[in-house]
């Protein structure tokens, strides 16, 4: 299924809702003035991209179009180009549309380890299952590690997914040291000659020092066991997240050196614009998006489509 098709389908039932298409803010042939720009800024802010990025775009519009007659396509073009520039950053890594694993940095030899972290309830465990399915569909042998030994029934949750997917899982009783789960996971993936190990972790707030230390220990254990690992440290972020997303990205990156973001729950009305600010200030790219609760509801991130959606009704 096409990447954002699902999204679009999902959004069709939301006709009654709430956003106005940015393009409706203007009429062809009007003069673009400050009040237009202000409405533009409001629309940007409502995507959660934050004041700085919003103002940057408005500034661009002001420079290029203020006082001139509105040609909607041109203005839209300016916005899109600027946003894509912000989202793509300066690394020109291009992903292969036909290879769903192409955003990932896979190990050149031996198994690839993917560590998944994020604040509470953002969609880590679900995203892991989606990612596992994606990898399986590319012929990879996957092992899951149930590293959330804290939350009630978290191990059971991932175990149920592994059963549905038919992939291997390592678990320890709840309350165990999550670093030891990671360790055992590394051993298992080596022993069984599997290709990819994905490690779940308990949700934690980026301000909880002791829990962030715990996460760092997991990170270190992986590197000790499998050189070069973790090859991906993915931060899962909830698309409804506001400006706190910046603090999340910053603090998690300090601990596990985030290589990418999975932006979950984009099937709602939230726009997830905070990833623009994150990309802009920290360079961390979004790699996948989550668009539903089912295991197939995952898609590779595409700046083009994301930008379209930012201002879609």
């Amino acid at each position, binding site marked *: 299924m096409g990447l954002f098709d699902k999204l679009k389908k*999902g*959004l069709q*039932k*939301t006709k009654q*809702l*709430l956003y106005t298409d940015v393009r409706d803010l203007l009429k062809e042939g009007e003069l673009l003035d400050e009040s237009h720009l202000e409405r533009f800024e*409001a629309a940007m*802010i*409502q*995507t*959660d991209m*934050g*004041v700085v990025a919003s103002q940057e775009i408005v500034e661009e519009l002001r420079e290029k179009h203020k006082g001139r007659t509105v040609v909607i396509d041109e203005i839209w073009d300016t916005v899109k180009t600027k946003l894509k520039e912000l989202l793509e950053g300066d690394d020109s890594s291009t992903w292969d549309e036909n290879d769903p694993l192409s955003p990932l940095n896979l190990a050149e030899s031996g198994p690839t380890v993917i560590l998944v972290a994020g*604040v*509470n*309830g*953002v*969609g880590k465990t679900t995203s892991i299952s989606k990612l596992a399915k994606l990898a399986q569909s590319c012929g990879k042998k996957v092992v899951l590690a149930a590293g959330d030994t*804290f*939350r*009630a*029934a*978290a191990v*059971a*949750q991932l*175990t*149920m*997914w592994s059963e549905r997917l038919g992939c291997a899982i390592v678990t320890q009783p709840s309350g165990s040291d999550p670093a030891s789960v990671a360790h055992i996971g590394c051993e298992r993936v080596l022993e069984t000659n599997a290709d990819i190990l994905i490690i779940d972790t308990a949700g934690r*707030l*980026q*301000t*909880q*020092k*002791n829990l962030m230390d715990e996460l760092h220990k997991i990170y270190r254990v992986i590197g000790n066991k499998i050189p070069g690992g973790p090859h991906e440290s993915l931060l899962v972020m*909830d698309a*409804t*997240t*506001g*400006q*706190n*997303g910046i*603090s999340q990205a910053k603090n998690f990156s300090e601990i596990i050196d985030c290589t990418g973001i999975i932006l979950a*729950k984009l*099937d*709602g*009305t*939230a*726009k997830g*614009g*905070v990833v623009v600010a994150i990309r802009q200030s920290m360079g961390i790219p979004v790699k996948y998006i989550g668009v539903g*609760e089912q295991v197939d509801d995952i898609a590779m991130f595409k700046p083009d489509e994301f930008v379209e959606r930012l201002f879609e009704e």
Partner: protein
Amino acid sequence: MFDGFSDGLNKAFAFIDRGKLTESNIREGMRQVKQSMLEADVNYDVTQDFIAKVTEKAVGDKVLKSLKPSEHIVGIVYEELTALMGGKVDSSLHLKTEGITILMMCGLQGSGKTTTCGKLARMLKEEGWNPMLVAADLQRPAAIEQLRQVGGQIDVPVYTEDPAKSSPVQVCKNGLKAAKKAGDIKVLILDTAGRLHIDDELMGELELIDKKLQPDQALLVCDAMTGQDAVNSAKVFNEALELDGVILTKLDGDTRGGAALSVKAVTGVPIKYIGVGEKLDALEEFHPDRMAQRILGGGDMATLLEKAQREFDADEMLVQQEKMSKGEFTLADFRSQMSQIKKLGSMRSIMKMIPGMGGMADLDPDVDPEAEMKRVEGIIDSMTPFERKHPDKIDRNRRNRIAKGCGQDPSDINNMLKQFNSMASMMKNMSGMGVKDRMKAMKEMTQDGGPMGAGSKGREKQRSKRGPLDSAAAKEKKKKQRKVASKARKKNKKKRN
């Protein structure tokens, strides 16, 4: 939690204070207020309204002529902030003394419903209401198991059914039957599955539960880290269910929590409780006035006092305060005081509530006061009762043994003892001071490393020393607290009836 926001406000008003107050620099100040509100995730429209209102009031003659215009403006911002968050909130759940009160929890995926169910159940149980939980999330893998474990932790019954053979409506109906049958259940809490507000099918299901069960309170659980979308989902849930209240979760992080400001302003539904931690006791009543004070850096003494009242063993405190003033405070007392303090919750969150100490909580973000406290506890726990009473008798042999016992370095033990000694003597001295001097002394102590060392150790001690009043004052305070508590009890009774 609102730090960044108050920083922004402070900056804005410092700006106003610098020059002569004119209409144009009021507007500049307000522009900065606006920016910090948006950065705090306050909804755009709500922000616009707020700014317009405050600017209008501030530009009025009265402010321009008042002696301290910036203070005047802060006053206006404070009032408006409070009003925006709902003025005085009724955080009562309006429990019925007759029959079973049904609370229905709902919200987006991952907002914290199940944990909040557990927190509410724990709170109600503590207040003497007999709650039962119903696992109506048949959607997410292991959600039922999660609620079952949460119920087990607080010893509250959980009604569950096999998800393959049931439906959410059926579980709720049967849960009510089971509660009636059990006889002594007073409150039934329905944990529904997380859902998107635009998922018509699942919203329909929720409306069906609402229709069939007729819950007394429909509560929306909302993540405090939510951005501009918070009002969208809250609006739709409110339209579907006529919400009675909102519970805002995950406020223990560094989110500026603009959602708190927005949701009430847009939906009119009051925020009743806030979640401030993962543990099941981390639930507090929401007070807009206190929150607004906190935004303005005024501290939140009232919340702290209320918490202290609930959790501190008052008699124990009194004994210790007497000991302190006589200089008989031992390590054993210190240890027991620490566990009292621990009941209060996160150090950092407590610290922020004390006027003038908000800044101290931010002194060294790298130090974890809880971990530091645990370390000290570990040391004291490895001592014999004799050693706790006579720290001066701890020689090198004893020190090495203690170090081994708690897995720390002998020099750590030494440091801790030194810190304790100077702290104990400081406490003795301070017991004669008035509140203001005591505050000052504490502040000085924490600033120059203080008797419990720099950074977190200083902070920690400052916590443990919050109480050294002289005994007469302490008795007086206790009397007052009792009065307040009994008044509150009466008031609650009235509310419930």
